């Protein structure tokens, strides 16, 4: 028996010895090989996002900032009574109690309860003093201008990526360079901070300063919203630019959304309609044809055309005017917006030249605005035009343009003939406030001579004078110019022009003291009811915003030449 006992003892001892040998093998012989084998499989670098840069308006006022917000999380393993707790939390945070209970009952070590809680919510939950609840400071994007600039600025996702608008377009600049640091992580993927993080040079997000003027933006948005509501319209947009530099002072779309309380339910409201939507420009195209004809010496401003007393047949189609006109000068054709007069004037222009005109004014191609998703619009090649198509093009039907295209073309009419690329960026600054890139206005090309531009400006000043279609855009003591446009919309069902869906547009501007265009503006209201004429719908909006612009930009009235007898 003693022999067997000893045999067992020796067996146990040799097994223990074997364990010792195995330990020696693991820990001294193959250890480095084994460690590298496991470590090469695991990514030990983590991305630490830099603070996202601010977006400022042209005066340095904040338009988008990153603020620290508390988020509430829980460790379900430490929660004793998930049912009761979820009811109490759901009440304070207005969440779904049963869904919360499910999360709190899980076997996980970490669940979010609410991201981006308000300070009040945090305080109320903190007062409950519950074990297993913790708070994390996160950065959240905040937009002080709220709804008025939301379509332009866009949004940032919960993990800090720009998803729409300028937040997307300038995402790389705003995001900065994230730090990649080598860290140790625990088995659940959490970083072990006990030994601190290694220091690396990180580039904070840069500041993007826009050409937008916060005040003008607000004024434009409020006036637009009021007009869309009052006219029972579907939507609308306003762009205010500096015609000389292409800077955009304001760009408002309605409907819009509240970027500080996203719901993602109505994504249509996220559209920046001034850039991504197209419409038929209607009569707003007339001054462009006239300028092109004048520039090519096809007619002169005082030449007269017969307007057929309001009815004119082109092939099987009859063209109407809104009033019966007889003989009108070229400038009066624009002033009264006679379709028939315009058809006759455009007939002087070769189709090829017409196409060239549209292309050089920038229709059918993107303007190059620094905004994602800009539309090309649509200009069909002249080889496919019928005579009716040509006639309709004369009063701006049969092509589609975007708001930004139209105002860019319009700017060329009034700024001496230059297509200036529109832009929203003023400069990019680093985190310390130094300017590292300034946006310089770019002239794309010259489309008309400066003398033609002056003539076009004078014709459009007539539009906004007494008796013109833009009469209601007048601002007292200031010189206003522009052109109205009431375009029929194509009915999506029948494919023909609708009898009751119109786009009412006014493109115009205000002169400064010396008679030069100080700013230009496009106001476009989509499907207004019951009044659909631009003169009724769009012009008053222009005037209203114009008043605000004068105050904000400090424009002086046009100088008056003293007459004999004037005492003051």
């Amino acid at each position, binding site marked *: 028996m003693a022999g067997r006992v000893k045999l067992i003892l020796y067996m146990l001892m040799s097994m*223990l010895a074997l364990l010792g040998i195995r*330990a020696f093998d693991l*820990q001294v012989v193959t250890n480095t090989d084994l460690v590298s084998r496991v470590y090469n*499989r695991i990514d030990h670098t983590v991305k630490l996002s830099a603070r996202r840069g601010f977006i400022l308006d042209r005066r340095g006022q904040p338009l988008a900032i990153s603020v620290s917000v508390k988020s509430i999380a829980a460790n379900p393993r430490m929660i004793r009574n998930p049912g009761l707790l979820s009811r109490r939390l759901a009440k304070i945070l207005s969440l779904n109690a049963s869904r919360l209970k499910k999360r709190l009952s899980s076997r996980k070590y970490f669940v979010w309860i609410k991201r981006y809680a308000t300070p009040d919510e945090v305080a109320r939950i903190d007062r409950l003093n519950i074990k297993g609840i913790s708070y994390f400071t996160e950065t959240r994007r905040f937009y002080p201008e709220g709804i008025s600039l939301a379509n332009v600025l866009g949004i940032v996702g919960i993990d800090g990526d720009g998803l729409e608008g300028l937040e997307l377009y300038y995402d790389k600049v705003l995001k900065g360079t994230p730090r990649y640091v080598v860290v140790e992580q625990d088995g659940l993927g959490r970083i*072990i901070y006990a030994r601190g993080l290694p220091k690396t040079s990180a580039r904070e997000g840069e500041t993007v300063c826009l050409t937008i003027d916060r005040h003008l933006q607000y004024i434009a948005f409020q006036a637009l919203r009021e007009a869309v509501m009052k006219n029972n319209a579907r939507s609308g947009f306003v762009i205010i630019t500096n015609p000389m530099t292409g800077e955009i002072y304001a760009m408002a779309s309605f409907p819009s959304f509240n970027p500080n309380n996203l719901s993602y339910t109505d994504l249509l409201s996220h559209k920046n309609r001034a850039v991504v939507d197209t419409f038929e420009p209607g009569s707003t195209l007339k001054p462009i044809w006239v300028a092109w004809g004048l520039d090519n010496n096809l007619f002169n401003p005082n030449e007269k055309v017969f307007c057929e007393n309001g009815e004119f047949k082109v092939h099987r189609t009859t063209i109407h005017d809104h009033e019966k006109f007889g003989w009108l000068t070229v400038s009066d054709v624009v002033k009264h917006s006679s379709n028939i007069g315009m058809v006759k004037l455009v007939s002087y222009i070769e189709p090829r030249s017409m196409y060239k005109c549209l292309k050089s004014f920038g229709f059918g191609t993107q303007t190059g605005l620094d905004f994602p998703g800009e539309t090309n619009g649509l200009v069909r090649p002249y080889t496919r035009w019928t005579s009716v198509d040509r006639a309709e093009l004369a009063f701006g039907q049969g092509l589609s343009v975007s708001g930004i295209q139209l105002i860019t073309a319009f700017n060329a009419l009034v700024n001496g003939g230059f297509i200036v690329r529109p832009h929203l960026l003023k400069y990019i600054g680093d985190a310390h406030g130094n300017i590292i890139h300034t946006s310089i206005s770019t002239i794309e090309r010259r489309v008309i001579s400066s003398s033609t531009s002056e003539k076009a400006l004078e014709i459009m000043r007539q539009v906004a004078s007494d008796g013109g279609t833009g009469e209601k855009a007048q601002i007292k003591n200031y010189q206003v110019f522009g052109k109205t446009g009431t375009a029929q919309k194509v009915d999506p069902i029948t494919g023909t022009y609708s009898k009751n869906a119109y786009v009412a547009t006014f493109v115009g501007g205000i002169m400064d003291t010396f008679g030069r265009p100080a700013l230009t503006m496009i106001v476009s209201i989509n499907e207004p009811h019951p009044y659909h004429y631009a003169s009724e719908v769009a012009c008053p909006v222009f005037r209203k915003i114009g008043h605000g612009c004068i105050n904000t930009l400090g424009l002086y009235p046009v100088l008056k030449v003293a007459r004999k007898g004037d005492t003051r």
Partner: protein
Amino acid sequence: MRKRQVDEKELDCDLIFLVVTLSLLSLGAIMVYSASFCVSREISNSGAYYMVRHLIHLSIGIGIMFSLMQLDYRKLNSKTLAYLAVLAGFTSLFLCFIPGIGVRGGNARRWISIMGFTFQSSELMKIVLILFISHFLARKSKSIGKFSVGVLPILIITGTAAIFIFLEPDFGTAALLLIWAMTMLFIAGMRWKHLFLIGSGSLPIVVLMLLSAPYRRNRLTAFLDPWSHIQNTGYQIVHSMLAFAKGGLLGVGLGEGTQKLFYLPAPHTDFIFSVIGEELGLLGVLVVIALFCIWIWRAFFIALATKDSFGFYLVIASCTFIGLQAIINMGVTMSILPTTGMALPFFSYGGSAMLMVSVASGIILSVSRRSRI
């Protein structure tokens, strides 16, 4: 005067064995604190949650050990007690499967809850079987050569216990129980013929049981090739080996290990040896192995010095059980054996396991005091 005579017959306990036992327990307590700190933080506000509980278990355990040391173990050599204990053991195993009393942990029903105390039935069964087998072998030592009289009763009782435990499911403990019973029968003088018969007869059954559950098959494949299964089934074993590898010769230092941070499953129970390997290095590992060596060697020494056969079997049974369990656990952490959920005696956190270890050690100490009788 008569009482005094009796006292004189009782010797001092085996000092080496006592010192080694206490060393193992103290080292265990330190390692439980280190290994459980972060796990404690996840389930409570304090890192000492498991540590405090372990210290409570430890003090109760040491109390039981010293009380048993005072007790004359021969009083335990009673047929009634042996069979009552077996009855109690089976009852507690059975209760694991009764809803309301049996407690689930993960997918296993290994615990019973009575009056707020949760207890692992298989640990009680280990003590019961030590007592029963020692009593049985001491009584039937002359007829051990006869299969039906000497071998079969033990096979039936341990086999039934093993089936219960297997159904919990706890394949490792069930297998350990059978291996240990065979070892005891072998020491008692069972015939080689019978040993081979039982061995060859049970092998296919064991293999079948091993492959019967998908999770056991996964553990087996993960054991055979942990690197191809590193994302799922091999994850635990790779990180256990990594812990040893990171430890190197001298270890990363007490408390400095990172594999216990939720890479290792159950760092304070089943995989505490990996934490020792990482934090105390090869040096610490060899110290632990050496302590187990001395402990086993000293127990065998006590057993061989005893003239009473019940005492002899008690010591051998306790010591081989704990020794085998320790070897299996350490083998698992170093990937010599496939993963089974088994505690490392003296080290792992767990009240029932601590109770079993202290009862076994107490019995061995009690025998050591009376080895001349």
